[in-house]
């Protein structure tokens, strides 16, 4: 994705991760800023479905040629689905970070944690 974009319908974690909420299930991924800093993603090391994630903690790793980055969970819960398509096409994380580049879907254990997340505007503002 060529230009920076931070969709308004998402919530953001300061460490460059987004969450899209749909009832008590949320989809997670990394932001435009994160994929741009990494460069071309060559490998996504996915977690197992059924595993637990905790807000603020790493649940996966994403690699470019010269860097490794932890992927931070914005919210806590149980992983109900993993985007296996990223195994063959990790570049989706660069090309469509908010769409095909989604990483996991999580059943939230504490939806009130969303209050600690940032809006698109606040996230973009703290990038400078």
């Amino acid at each position, binding site marked *: 994705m060529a230009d920076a974009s931070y969709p308004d319908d998402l919530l953001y974690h300061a460490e460059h991760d987004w969450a899209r909420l749909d009832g008590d299930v949320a989809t997670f991924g990394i932001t435009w800023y994160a994929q741009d800093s990494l*460069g*071309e993603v*060559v*490998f996504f090391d996915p977690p197992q479905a059924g595993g637990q994630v905790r807000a603020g903690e790493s649940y996966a790793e994403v*690699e*470019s*040629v010269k860097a490794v980055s932890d992927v931070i969970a914005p919210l806590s819960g149980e992983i109900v689905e993993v985007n296996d398509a990223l195994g063959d096409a*990790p*570049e989706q994380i660069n090309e469509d970070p908010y769409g095909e580049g989604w990483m996991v879907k999580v059943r939230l254990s504490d939806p009130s944690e969303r209050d600690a997340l940032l809006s698109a505007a606040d996230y973009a503002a703290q990038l400078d």
Partner: protein
Amino acid sequence: MSAQAPSAPDGGAPAGGAEREPTTDELLVEPVLTIYERSREGRRAFAAPALDVPARPLDELLPPALRRAAPARLPEVSEPELVRHYNGISKRNFDLDSGFYPLGSCTMKHNPKLHERVAALPGNARLHPLQDPRRAQGALELMWNLQETLAEIAGLPYVSLQPSAGSHGELAGVLLTRAYHEDRGERRTKVLTPDTAHGTNPATVTMAGYEVVKVGTAPDGGVDLDDLRAKADDQVACLMLTNPNTLGLFDANIAEIARIVHGVGATLYYDGANLNAIMGITRPGDMGFDIVHFNLHKSFTQPHGGGGPGAGPIAVSERIEPFLPRPQVVRREPADGGPPSFDLDHERPKSIGKLRGFQGNYGVFVRSYAYIRSLGAAGLREASETAVLNANYLLALLKRAGVAEHLPVAYDRVCMHEFVLSGAPMRRELGIRTLDLAKRLLDFKVHPPTVYFPLLVDEALLVEPTETETKETLERFAAIVAAILREAADDPEIARQAPSTTLVRRLDEAKAAKQPVIRQPL
């Protein structure tokens, strides 16, 4: 059997079954072929000696169930082809004998040619490691002498030559630290490393079972003493440092750092990668370090070989000595006053044990020992003084107008044997990154300095000329850098597309990582 790679070699004659003759343009491009692609069934370079014992049926000696189904698909080539192939690919390498190689942190100094001759002496080259020590006295005396020399340079009395590389020496050092603490009945959990540390340091800490805790760097480039005091507690086993550090700066607070670390009962470990700045001038042991590793492939001229071999001997203080790996080379004075003899001591009850087979990379010891005997005390000191002089001179050249504003030195102090520039202004103002500058340097037949290390400096360029370069070489390098910057101001695309005169241009590393092809398909 001939092997054709699916990724067909570029250029050259069209594949078999061509309907026309190749053109001169096609033939002018020499294909890149692996040794497997040169293979043709029936060719050979090796002729086995004739069987001179009665032949017994192989099945009797080695049942078929224990034998492999099909032979390894090694190439079939003659000797002339082998020689041509490896000569040919060697010419696709830049090397230190051919040009300037200011790779920071690597100490690419000249590899004296005498060393290959003495390493090849049959008494060295064909000596078995398990030969009775009484029949390996020359080798053991050489190792002993090398140990004594390294002890004197380090200012620490006891040396093990066993580790095979710097990071192997680091692992030895941290395991020695662990053994030392456990012997005192203590279990510590953390090791401190500065945020400027070489990657091998934290990797080693994890392998040795400790948690890495980073210590910050002060504005002057030295260790942040307040941060160190805050983090140094009785859970800390060790602080790993190098001095001068990876910014090329000597930390004048080292005595205080040692006091803080020893004050909590931790050991102080010296990464010898930067020893080239201080030989004969100051010594890690005198600074308060307990354990030092040397990189014989850095300061002591073992050729880098494209990635090894090296050696990482360690020198330690009295309190660490009992834990040294086994065997240790020892010297014995005979009761009758005759000449001393040398032996391998395996009886070391508190030893951490072994980090590898036998006693270490002896062939590397021979070369480093020859270097030390060539230079002597004065020569070693002169090497360090000249390394520091050359680095400061090159820095002075690069601080001139036209360069300094784009590539400022990260810490404006007298440097030691290396210095760090930041390409951040260059990126902002000229639109080219440190990476692009490095790639453009390749067109001028110099090896670029180390890039993007240490991590602390944005767009880092770590430059270490070493003492074996002439003043003219340094001046030419500075002129090239200045010219590249002027060129970039005019047309940044040249550097961004560089190199353009090398045998290959920038390579698709992302593809190599996403779809790794790490062997020839056969």
